[in-house]
């Protein structure tokens, strides 16, 4: 932080910047709505909010911040769940909300060129008339914006078959910290040079500000059908998932919920879930009619053979939407039964599901905090929701400790601390467990290639070595104590 500017002189900064008044928010009442993103446990009123309207304005804001050494955080719709858009007390919060136009739809190449503030779902809605859609569908898709999706490499319930954001975009325009505008990727299937499109995706606003995204569009499958299977244990449900994949079937969606999540969702949206089941699986198959028909009966047999006590096929599109509504409303449903909840995002190799869930159950009783589990079973992405009450003294701290242990458990079985929500502020300490000193240094060197003064979204995503030393629970490599040169406190 020693490189950053004196923050007292906000008026001087604004005068030098020369942005129109309607693009600036500086009153406390205007700044407060920006104090947090979707992770409300962390909040900080920003020093200044800027709402540019043109790419040129973004370029001059970044260039000026670079010159003045003022840090900057970019923000889309603010739905992120890891505090990636948490503002700074001494920096600019750059909202991309006014970049909300769909610029061009190239039907022949199945591409849509959009501004970063365009909502995820709005893209699919706009191109639906042409029989096309944009595949990644994070559960916040009605509100989240595509720029944020790229910054976080957002996923959704269809990742196993259709991939993450990184697999579904073609090109980006980014503004670098020095104000330079760069074109990354292309409208062809690849481009010359390094794959910077992959590097930018999921970089959590630390490498550049995204000002335009070209997404790939896919034809809407001819049909989609969903099966709902009930199980008496989560382990059996897990085995059934392995069996489906081993049989060579690639479901469009494969989701699991445990009993607490099932009951919460059922009470909330009446999806028709069996509320006495220990686990349910939702298995969606899509493709041509002939194909789906054949696969549905194969999967039905597999599920029954693997011990599902009840397998139901959604009879029409309405029932299919209802089955999904329960899953998509799982988070708010849990929100109804608990004053607060803390959503985790670890990913594990699926074969360790039984071990991980039973350990979570054991810790849940030790910490006296209930856990509802929602699981993207196809790709191993686990969302344990820890139920707590922030008004009870010490409960948030206990929850955070419990959550941290779950993430470390994910790493210990060969998984990762975050599958799709990003590291942000929230999981920064666990990064010290997942990566060793050399790997973290490598991340910092890459950051420096884009942003030499460390002004873009400082303090997020990649921890400093000093922070890891302070955190104390670090990656132990070859039995050596990491960071031997740093003081411990």
């Amino acid at each position, binding site marked *: 932080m020693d490189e950053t500017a004196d923050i007292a002189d906000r008026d001087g900064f604004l005068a030098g910047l020369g942005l129109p008044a309607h693009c600036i928010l500086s009153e406390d009442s205007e700044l407060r709505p920006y104090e947090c993103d979707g992770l409300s446990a962390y909040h900080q009123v920003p020093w200044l909010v800027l709402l540019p309207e043109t790419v040129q304005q973004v370029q001059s804001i970044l260039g000026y911040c670079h010159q003045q050494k003022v840090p900057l955080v970019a923000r889309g719709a603010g739905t992120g769940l890891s505090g990636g858009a948490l503002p700074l007390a001494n920096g600019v919060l750059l909202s991309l909300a006014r970049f909300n136009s769909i610029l061009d739809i190239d039907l022949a190449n199945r591409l849509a060129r959009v501004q970063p503030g365009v909502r995820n779902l709005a893209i699919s809605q706009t191109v639906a008339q042409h029989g096309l859609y944009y595949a990644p569908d994070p559960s916040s898709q009605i509100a989240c914006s595509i720029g944020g999706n790229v910054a976080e490499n957002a996923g959704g319930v269809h990742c196993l078959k259709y991939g993450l954001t990184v697999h579904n975009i073609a090109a980006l325009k980014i503004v670098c910290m020095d104000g330079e505008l760069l074109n990354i990727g292309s409208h062809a299937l690849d481009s010359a040079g390094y794959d910077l499109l992959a590097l930018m995706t999921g970089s959590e606003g630390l490498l550049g500000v995204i000002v335009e995204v070209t997404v790939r569009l896919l034809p809407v499958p001819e049909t989609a059908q969903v099966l709902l299977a009930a199980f008496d244990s989560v382990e059996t449900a897990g085995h059934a998932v392995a069996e489906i994949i081993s049989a060579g079937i690639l479901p469009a969606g494969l989701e699991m919920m445990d009993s607490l999540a099932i009951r919460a969702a059922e009470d909330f949206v009446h999806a028709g879930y069996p509320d006495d089941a220990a686990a349910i699986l939702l298995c969606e198959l899509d493709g041509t009619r002939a194909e789906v028909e054949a696969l549905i009966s194969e999967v039905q047999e597999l599920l029954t053979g693997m011990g599902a006590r009840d397998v139901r096929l959604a009879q029409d599109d309405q029932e299919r939407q209802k089955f999904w509504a329960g899953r998509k409303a799982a988070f708010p449903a849990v929100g109804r039964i608990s004053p607060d909840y803390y959503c985790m995002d670890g990913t594990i*190799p699926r074969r360790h599901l039984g071990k991980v869930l039973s350990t979570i159950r054991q810790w849940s009783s030790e910490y006296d905090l209930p856990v509802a589990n929602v699981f993207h079973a196809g790709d191993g992405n686990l969302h344990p929701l820890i139920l707590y009450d922030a008004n009870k003294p010490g409960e948030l701290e206990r929850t955070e400790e419990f959550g941290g242990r779950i993430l470390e458990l994910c790493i210990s079985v*060969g998984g990762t601390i975050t599958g799709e929500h990003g590291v942000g502020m929230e999981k920064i300490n666990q990064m010290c467990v997942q990566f060793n000193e050399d790997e973290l240094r490598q991340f910092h060197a*890459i950051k420096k290639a884009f942003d030499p003064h460390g002004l873009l979204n400082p303090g997020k995503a*990649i921890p400093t070595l000093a922070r890891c030393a302070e955190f104390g629970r670090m990656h132990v490599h070859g039995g050596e104590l990491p960071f031997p040169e740093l003081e411990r406190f």
Partner: protein
Amino acid sequence: MIQQDLTEPLRERIAGACADKTPVSIRGGNSKSFYGHPCEGESVDVSQHTGVLEYEPSELVIQARAGTALTDIEKLLDQHRQMLAFDPPHFSPKGTLGGAVATGLAGPGRPFTGSVRDSILGVGLINGRGEILNFGGQVMKNVAGYDVSRLMAGALGTLGLLTDVSLKVLPKPASVYTLQQLCSQQDAILRFSEWMAKPLPLSAACWFDDHLYLRLSGTETGIRQAQHQLGDKLLEQAPDWWTSIRDHRHDFFQRQSPLWRLSVPPATPPLAIHGEWLIDWAGGQRWLSSAESAETVRRITASVGGHATLFRNGDQTTDVFHPLPAPLFSLHRRLKQALDPKGILNPGRMYKGL
């Protein structure tokens, strides 16, 4: 398949080269040594660093050492009715996993089942400082840290020596059919674009010598239904057509003129560059055998938003890869500096100064 872990000796080689500031040229099975510029430096052979480290068919994930032969990996996957999604070319039977990732080359299935980098879940690598680093992992979804793994695809070993790679694999389709019909280049491109916008079980689409070729993959009934939709002018074709295109064994690739690989937005109409054309990737990848100047080929390709690679038979003076705009190239150099500060890893293989 031989299991042999040479990570430590490889690390020592790179660390030594870093200390002496002497360049190294990384080699796998030498099947793609023609690709890119020849680079100076002592050869570091990764082809003996072999073996599958982990393979879980029920999780669609395989992890193997970089020197493992692609054929060995494909044989193992085939036993479980699975395959590499990016359909890598085999320019010789010796091609390695590391080479496939470093060159980033994919076969005819690319527009349908993804590129090399789309399959990557994680890598182990040795950077230019001689440090062993791991990024990504063996899970489908992983957003912790910058995506250094996928950055390695197509970087031609200039950012790190790959030690191991984890990939997402795909189930093999139950049935595969290859069809062909008489068609002009222009009409083929139009039809590809039209068909790609429909939910058809396409898995490859190519044009050559006034014929279009399609591959359909999926369930038997699904394919029959699609065949009906596509019309009755399509005739069956032997499936080895696709391997002859993928592995450049087809006569088209045996010509002596420079062979260009043009990557363009797939619906781009036929390009006015004199030469012979073979169109793959449903229009997105165009092979051109032509004596036209590099300047002409690149100018016309760039004008439609594409880039041109001088794939084979080029002279030593022409850039193999499409030149980058100055600010982008300068970012490439800073990134190279971040991973290989002494500039010892395959210097110049991709671009001069990288």
